[in-house]
């Protein structure tokens, strides 16, 4: 459903991504692992339209989307959960969710969306009048995921959802990612925590210094001696 075809992304003169290609099929959970600063976040920003690509193309359901503005891409069904969640700090939890359902394809479903979200995340129902800025890190991450679900996405781009969270909360986040997979969402997950992410992945890519250096399923990653020592600590 998603096809990234040889994209380059620059920050000024600095090339953050070089000729990166990858695919996500419908219903798949695909992960991108790699060290800090390898360009993983840049990749997600490029797909969601927050960063312009300079070369190559991005297709979603065979439609070219890298020429579209970010607010159009979310209408197509691609939703980004950025690093740290980036909930709107001075909006209430409820307004954050409402903002999630802003795009024209989602707005009509906002009401049932709220019910589903509050079922899934009872803590958000409890805090719905509270400012998002006053939530804990884990709650904010949940809110960011919930906000993304409100946009009626087909593909969810998750940027380091476990970053900076306590181990118990990380478990919760990963549990939730698996739940979304079961619900039929396609997921492109970027993680430094390679071990953890590989366990839930259908397919995986390794990015280093802006380039794809390895791809395969979990077994391929487990067997590769370089990855074993550098990323899996085996």
């Amino acid at each position, binding site marked *: 459903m998603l096809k990234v075809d040889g994209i380059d992304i620059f920050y000024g003169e600095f090339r953050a991504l070089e000729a990166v290609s990858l695919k996500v099929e419908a219903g798949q959970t695909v992960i991108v692992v790699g060290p800090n600063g390898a360009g993983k976040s840049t990749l997600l920003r490029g797909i*969601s339209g927050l960063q312009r690509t300079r070369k190559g193309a991005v297709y979603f359901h065979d439609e070219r989307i890298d020429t579209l*503005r*970010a*607010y159009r891409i979310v209408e197509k069904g691609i*939703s980004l959960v*950025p690093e740290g969640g980036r909930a709107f*700090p001075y909006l209430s939890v409820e307004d954050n969710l409402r*903002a999630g359902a802003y795009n024209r394809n989602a707005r009509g479903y906002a009401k049932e969306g709220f019910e589903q979200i509050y079922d899934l995340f009872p803590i958000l129902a409890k805090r719905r009048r509270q400012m998002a800025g006053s939530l804990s890190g884990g709650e904010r991450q949940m809110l960011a995921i919930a*906000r993304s679900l409100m946009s009626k996405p087909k593909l969810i781009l998750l940027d380091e959802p476990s970053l900076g969270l306590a181990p118990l909360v990380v478990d919760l986040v990963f549990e939730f990612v698996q739940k979304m997979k079961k619900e039929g969402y396609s997921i492109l997950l970027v993680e430094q925590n390679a071990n953890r992410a590989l366990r839930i992945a259908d397919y995986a890519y390794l990015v280093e210094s802006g380039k794809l250096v390895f791809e395969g399923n979990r077994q391929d990653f487990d067997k590769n001696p370089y990855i074993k020592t550098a990323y899996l600590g085996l």
Partner: protein
Amino acid sequence: MADQIIMAFINGILLGGVLALLAFGLNLIFGVVKIIHMAYGQFVMLGFYLIYSFNAIFHIPLVPAMLLGIAAMALLGVLTQLLLINPLLNAPRLNQLLALASLIIVLENLAMIIWGADYRGIPLTLPIINIGEVFIRSSYLIAFIGAIVVLGLLYLFLHRTYLGLAIRATAQDLEMAEGMGINPRIVYYVTLAAGGALTGVVAAFFVPIYTVHPHFGSSFTIMAFVIVVFGGMGNLLGGFISAFIIGVATSVAAVLYTNELADILALILFVLVMLVRPQGLLGVRA
């Protein structure tokens, strides 16, 4: 003397309501578009002239003339976005400031060419309310009540509509707002239209109080700017509170000393607050 001070205090509060409206508009534009509208007081001046012209020259009844003036100012806000702000959105801040500051000169000279240097006004006699020895001009009271009503409507707009939500989200995190499917350009146009309409509203409230001349706006540009910085840039509540502080301070000082000294005092107060609390009363340190 005590009566005079009480009266000045009340007038300060009443005028503070209108100033709060002005500060709200300036704050909204800064908070959302991240641009300082340097010619905001000149917009009020132009709105005043438009209402005056609609009424005195084209003989449109006063209230429709005011509504027309407000609509025209909203349109001018949109045009400012289209012709001046959009091309400079990614320009250095200094260039944006200079462009908007140059609008001051453009508007004041335009007013001079069209309406001349004479004081213009619509003669209205509104009753004066007196309670004991305290006299309150009903034109001030109407302006105050009107300003509070408009502020209430703005609050509802920002908190009860999808467009209002889009404006608040954009002010907090432009990128994420776009990631929610919000088109920032539309939000900017709506913000500038609302900001422009507000100058029209303020002008309408000023019609029974003042007469207008080409430099009428300059003191309000400074006043609005002082209030907004005093309260913390982009902080709507801070602007609301400081509008009343500045309103009362200048009004009381004007009675104790003179009008000219009152403006100086307001600025001294402003400088003092900036020295102690550079982020403003309710501002957050960046």
